[in-house]
Structure formats: structure tokens, C-alpha cells
């Protein structure tokens, strides 16, 4: 949850095709977790994941762009019109 710094410009992104408004300077992790409770499903069927180390070390927060490219959510900042997915929309082999 936000504890301040809410005067930043709004940025609209899409998460799994749904529009969501966040703020400039948010990481993808921040934006997606404010919109819901998880970032992705574990590839091994053990449930949802929502990041862990928040510093680019554990690699637990991978998400996907529309073209299937991976995004490390904790070190990527939101950009207007960003199209982000909790599962690979191209169904590539992970």
C-alpha cells in the first residue's frame, strides 16, 4: 500500500489486458501488486508468486510483455501504454 508520494503524474498501463492507473516512478512490481495480489504463477504449479527480494537478485518477479519478452518487475519502471502480462501471452516455452 502507498504511504505517500502520491502527487506524481498518473500513468496508465495494461495488466493482462485490463487498464490500470499507476504513478510515474512506480516499478512494475509496485503497480501490479497495487492492482492485485500476485505477479505470476510458479512454473511448477506451486501457486502464485509476488516477488521476494525487490532488488533484482532473486528473479522471482518475472512478468511478460505482449511480445513474450521477460520483464523483471522490481527493476523495471512503468511507462505509459505498457502492456504487461502475468503469463507469457505468446505461450513460449519458459
Amino acid at each position: 500500500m502507498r504511504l505517500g508520494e502520491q502527487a506524481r503524474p498518473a500513468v496508465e498501463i495494461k495488466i493482462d489486458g485490463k487498464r490500470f492507473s499507476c504513478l510515474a516512478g512506480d516499478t512494475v512490481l509496485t503497480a501490479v501488486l497495487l492492482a492485485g495480489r500476485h505477479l505470476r504463477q510458479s512454473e511448477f504449479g506451486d501457486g502464485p508468486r509476488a516477488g521476494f527480494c525487490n532488488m533484482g537478485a532473486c528473479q522471482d518477479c518475472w512478468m511478460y510483455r505482449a511480445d513474450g519478452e521477460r520483464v523483471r518487475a522490481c527493476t523495471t519502471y512503468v511507462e505509459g501504454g505498457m502492456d504487461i502480462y502475468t503469463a507469457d501471452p505468446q505461450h513460449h516455452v519458459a
Partner: protein
Amino acid sequence: MSLEKIVIIGSGPAGTRAAETLLRQGCRNITGISEAPASGGQIYRRQPAGFGRQADEVYGSEAEKATALHRSFDALAGSIDYRPNALVWNIFDRKVFTNGPKGVDEIPFDRLVLTTGAMDRILPIPGWTLPGVFTLGGAQIALKHQACAIGRQVVFAGAGPLLYLVAWQYMKAGAHVVAVLDTSAFANKIAASLKLLALPRLMFRGLKFRRDLKAKGVALHEGVRLARVEGTQSVTAISFEKGGKKQWLACDAVGLGFGLNPEMQLAELAGARTRFDRTFRQWVLAHDGEGRVAEGVYVAGDGHAIGGADVAELTGERAAWAVLADLGLPVSAERQSVIRRALKRQAIFREGIEQSFPLPAEWLADTPDETILCRCENVTFGEVRAAITELEPNDVNRLKAFARPGMGRCQGRVCGHVLAELLAAETGRPLEEVGRLRGQAPVKPLHYKAAAGKAEGAVQVQQWLEQADKVLEDG
């Protein structure tokens, strides 16, 4: 003056002080590489542009140090070849391999200074992969870097000074901190107090955090044994035992951590050796006392041994003096001696911290089989125990090959030490005898196409990729 090419990896307290000293003493061919978009490291991580909080709101009692460090880096950034947003994924043949905004690159060096930092040391407990569980460091970054709390009702659990610091920072920022669950008993801290008095300011700061938290009604439980993070889709509670009594606290987020582990993979790839430190119960980089780890390779900061931000600044400067001495440039014996004395006091304090917050590694013997040990590959304690019993691996690298823990995307950063602890516990051997996971390139995942772009055999890799695409298209 020297035109030898010096590459510094990392721009936190250690990297900044190393660069500053080298530049001031006449080195004119410095490249600074940072995976982050801005300098400061994790401890003095900067807010993104557009945030308005003042330094004292973000860094509290360390605001002055943070600001001074940022100012130092900003003053020198224009005089070095500074490359932010660049991941170093390999070091080979006296070249640093990066992947940055402009793609992959290879940077040859004459001398290399590694200041790669650390990440939280984790002991897995049932439910630790649920959404809502973050590392303590991660919880702190959410606040510093994003002005966010990891949840509406937060519990901080584990061991180490960060536990109380982050809880206090959350409370100050207006978050609801339900409790601090400290696995170390108060008696451990009393026993360590003489050592902690080596740095009275830090010790009294820690006591202030506890007092302020109590005054605000935050429950402080010491000497607890964490049982489980409860929930199915996300965190709903945490259960623990204290004095033989089972307890349960409703919460929607947990910050978990048991001290820090140094980030050593790149140093290993550059030829550094490790040694086991019994006090810290972990592997650290073996250096000559001034940061030299291999021919022309130097280390500093938490990436070589855990010491905290002040030690990082001191050892960053120490490594720079070692470089200068090896270049035949003048060094300041006075500064070196000041650093040596300061590090001695810090070392006594660090021993006190380790004694105050011992890693409760003995828990691992009783961790339920179904608990996930390797969160990347979803390998459970039960699967690892079975591999230990059936295949009798004599070191953790064999165990990794047998059961796949540590083989995933984090490259064993999170579970590597747990694997060693478990192998040692299950076979009754000392921890230092079961070894540690070797660092391997790429130290962090990168697109194969990016790696292939400039690497040897690029054409062949491109052909493989085309074949793979064809197979996938053909279904």
C-alpha cells in the same frame, strides 16, 4: 597519473569511495558499472525522479551519510566512464561482460574493483513463497524507493539488526506494524553487549528502535521459533512458538530475513577464492587484508564480507589505496591507518551483532518435507533429503546436480547456503566441509540472443535459435 584501465563494479558506498579515491589520486581511465539506474547501492538507494521526500524521511539517522555519498558520486560521475543500468553477467579473460541499455558489451580491464553488495540470508519456513512474503531488505526498498509498505498489516520476522530498523522505519512512515518476531533470545544480546559497545552510537540506536516500537504498541517477541506463514493464495497470518506456547498473528505481509549473504559470484569468476568464516557462519572472500583477491582484482563492501554501509565506505577506500600502491602511485599511510583502526572497531561490533542474532540453522533438521527449499525450481526439503540419503553427495554442487536445487534463475543466491546447512545437518558433517555452490556465468539471467550477439560462436547460437523457433512453430 595513471591511464591503466580500472573497472569498478557497483556504485554503492564501497564503489563510490573507491572511485572517488582513485580519481583524486590521479587515475584517469576509470569505468564505473552499475546494475541500478542511480548510485547509492541498496542501503542508500535513491528515489526515482519525481519523488519529493527529504533525505531524513528516506534515510532517517543516516540521512547525512546518504546525502554525502550521493554528492560524492554526482561530483565524480562526469569524470569517469559511468555505465548505469548495466548488468555484469560474466568476467572472463580479463574482460567484463555487460548487458545494458545499448545491448551487450565487453570491457577489457587492467584492474578490477568489485563492490557487488549483498542480499538477505533466508531460512525457508513453510509458506515462505506466498505472495506477501518479502525479504527484509525488499520490504525496506519498497518503503525507501517506492514509498510503499509491503502490506496493510506487516510482521517482521527473523534475526538481525535490520529487523528492528525496518520495523521502526515502517512505523515512522505510518504503516501498521503488527509485530517483530525475533528468533534470538534477549539473553544473546546481553551476552554480546560488551562487543556492541565498540560502536556505542549504533548500539544505542538499536535500543531506541526497540523502545519506540514498544511505545507505539508493536509487539516484540524474542526467542521465537517461526512455524509457518499461513495462507493459500497470499499471506493471512504467521504462526510461531515462544516458550513452548504456540501463537498466531493475523497479517497480510511478512518481511523475512536472517542477516545478509555476500554477493560473490563475479569475484569467483574473476579468480577470487573464498574462505569459511565461523563467526558469521558463512563463506566470504579471502583477501590479503587490503582487498586484493587475485592479480589486479580487488574487493570491498558487503560483497566481500558483511560489514554494513560504514565498512563498505572504508573498504572501498582501502581497495583504492591497494590499487594505487600496485600502480606505483603515492598512497596515504595516514588514511590507511585510520581505515585499519576504524575497521577493527567495526569488526568487534560485527562479532557482537552475530552473537546477538545467531542464525537458527538447527531449525532446518525439523523443517517439514513438503516445505519448498529452492523457490526457483520448486524443490522441497523432502526431495533434497531423499537425494542426500539415496545418492550420498559429498558436496553441495553434487547435490545440486542430483536434485536441481540452486539450478534456477536466482543461481542459488537464495537457497545455496540452506542447501549446505541441510547437507551438513543430515550427514553430521561440519558446514565448511560440504562446500558452497560455485559461481557460474551468467550470474543473472539474460536473453540468449543478447549473449550470442557478441560472444564467440554467435553464428552457431543463432542457428540453434532459428531451429528452436522452427520446432516450436511446427508444434
